[in-house]
């Protein structure tokens, strides 16, 4: 059980980076950006190919970041300069990235078994290699968890600073009210492009770290990832505090971890892994529909709560 929970924590931390990326486009800019399906695979492909070719894994992950940012730039320019609707711009980049990712990988998947990854240094550290961890059988999980926590905290700190700066505030304003933003002298097109660049950069980093954790990169690994990201973000928003921007960012991480725990549990309970995507899609659909549901349910819950007095009032009418 401990292994399952820690495994979920580990995956949750890596996917949290992607969730934060999706949050930037979906919640801050108000764009459902499908580019991420391509850029997560792109991050994995770049990292895998570089590491396979002997590049330092940290440099490889950084190159993945740059690749993701480039794909975000591409979607941003399609949307703002060529005036293609944002959803379609994302789809176009996503499809284009499929071919590009195949070119980067050279084949459908690349294995990283027995290669040095960003986690290797931590594997050698003695405090992560003690007898207790060996006995519990979690030595392979701890390096990823430690690095995941460091990266996630770093990203949250940087983003918290960034969205407090003049440029960051302008991006938030653009997502909130573009008309007002232009009237206040903000170049809304540039802000959308910057947002997409940051978002896809983070998503690619997430892909690079996931590929190194699972020891392979696969051309298909992006499929459905936007839904996973949305599910994590929504779970985080519903279950955890969302008052300040900082707590919102933290709630995304908890959301991503919670999502992984839920998935691990339903798999443990015997759900076939092939049904996972259906399960995720239904979760997101229900979560997105909750506000709509609650307006239908309100009269019912009211009458239950109001109980007898409500019934009497009706009779007297």
């Amino acid at each position, binding site marked *: 059980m401990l292994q399952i929970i820690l495994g979920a924590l580990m995956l949750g931390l890596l996917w949290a980076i992607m969730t934060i990326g999706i949050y930037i486009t979906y919640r801050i800019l108000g764009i459902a950006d499908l580019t991420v399906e391509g850029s997560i695979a792109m991050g994995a492909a770049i990292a895998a190919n570089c590491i396979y070719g002997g590049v330092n894994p940290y440099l490889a992950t950084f190159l993945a970041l740059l690749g993701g940012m480039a794909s975000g730039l591409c979607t941003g320019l399609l949307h703002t300069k060529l005036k293609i609707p944002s959803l379609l711009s994302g789809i176009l980049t996503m499809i284009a990235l499929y071919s590009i990712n195949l070119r980067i990988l050279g084949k459908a998947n690349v294995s990283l078994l027995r290669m040095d990854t960003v986690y290797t240094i931590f594997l050698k550290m003695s405090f992560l290699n003690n007898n207790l961890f060996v006995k519990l059988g979690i030595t392979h999980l701890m390096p990823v968890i430690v690095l995941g926590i460091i990266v996630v905290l770093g990203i949250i700190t940087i983003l918290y600073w*960034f969205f*407090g*700066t*003049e*440029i*960051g*505030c*302008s991006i*938030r*304003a653009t997502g*909130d*009210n573009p*008309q*007002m*933003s*232009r*009237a*206040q*002298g*903000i*170049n*809304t097109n540039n802000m959308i492009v910057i947002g997409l660049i940051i978002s896809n950069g983070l998503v690619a980093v997430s892909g690079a770290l996931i590929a190194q954790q699972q020891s392979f990169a696969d051309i298909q690994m992006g499929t459905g990832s936007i839904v996973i990201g949305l599910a994590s973000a929504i779970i985080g928003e519903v279950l955890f505090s969302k008052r300040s921007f900082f707590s919102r960012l933290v709630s995304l991480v908890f959301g991503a971890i919670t999502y992984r725990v839920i998935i691990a549990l339903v798999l443990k309970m015997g759900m076939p892994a092939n049904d996972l995507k259906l399960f995720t899609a239904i979760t997101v659909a229900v979560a997105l529909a909750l506000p709509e549901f609650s307006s239908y349910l309100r009269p019912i819950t009211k009458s239950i709560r109001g109980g007898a007095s409500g019934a009497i009032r009706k009779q007297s009418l």
Partner: protein
Amino acid sequence: MLSVSRVYKTFNIGTVNEKKALKNICLHLKEGDFVTLIGGNGSGKSTLLNCIAGVYDVDEGSIIIDGADVTKIPEHKRAGILGRVFQDPMVGTAANMGIEENLALAYRRGKKRTFKWGITNKERELYKEMLSQLGLGLENRLSDKVGLLSGGQRQALTLLMATLNQPKLLLLDEHTAALDPKTAVKVLELTNKFVTEGNLTTLMVTHNMRDAIKYGNRLIMMHDGRILLDIKNEAKQKLTVEDLLQRFGQASGEEFASDRALLA
């Protein structure tokens, strides 16, 4: 201060919905002019304002603000010398951001936005002082989300944002039309106060004839994409609603047909 010369604007050119919104508009405002712009629905007054603000490109003609030709300059670049308040109170402010954040966005209008903090403590003091001028108690709610405010409060805040750093030209697009009568009066009084105290060159669109007569030093009436009447200074002071209707009839050969303008 503002010089609009021979401006034409047509929407949906070449279709059955073609609409000539502005036909040869020439308008010149001196520094410190407070001009009220009145006209019926579809007379082109909002289009004119949007062309000046850069929301629409003009088909022909030129727009010069404070000596700079802005005809081809995009909306967000013109914004630095303009202050704008819109008809819809929801449009002028960002609902999910705080009052102070909205003011900070306006404070940086026309300046380069960098990686410095989006709002500083020094500014907060300034905003507090400015908000207290509104008399709405907003000075104690600096970090509240603007979405929590009423329409009137939001419009007053937008007005404050528009006048925050002395715009060369203040554009008010029926900014009290969506408010209840009492709030509308309050926002108009605030407008008048800011404009006269700051000696701001102002173009205020209104549907309300009484307001158009009461405020400002010059009244312009538009009809069917043209400027019909232009009444200045002393002549404007003596003006009444009846005069205005009569002169409209003489100039256009039609009867003024906007109930909203008459009833208001």
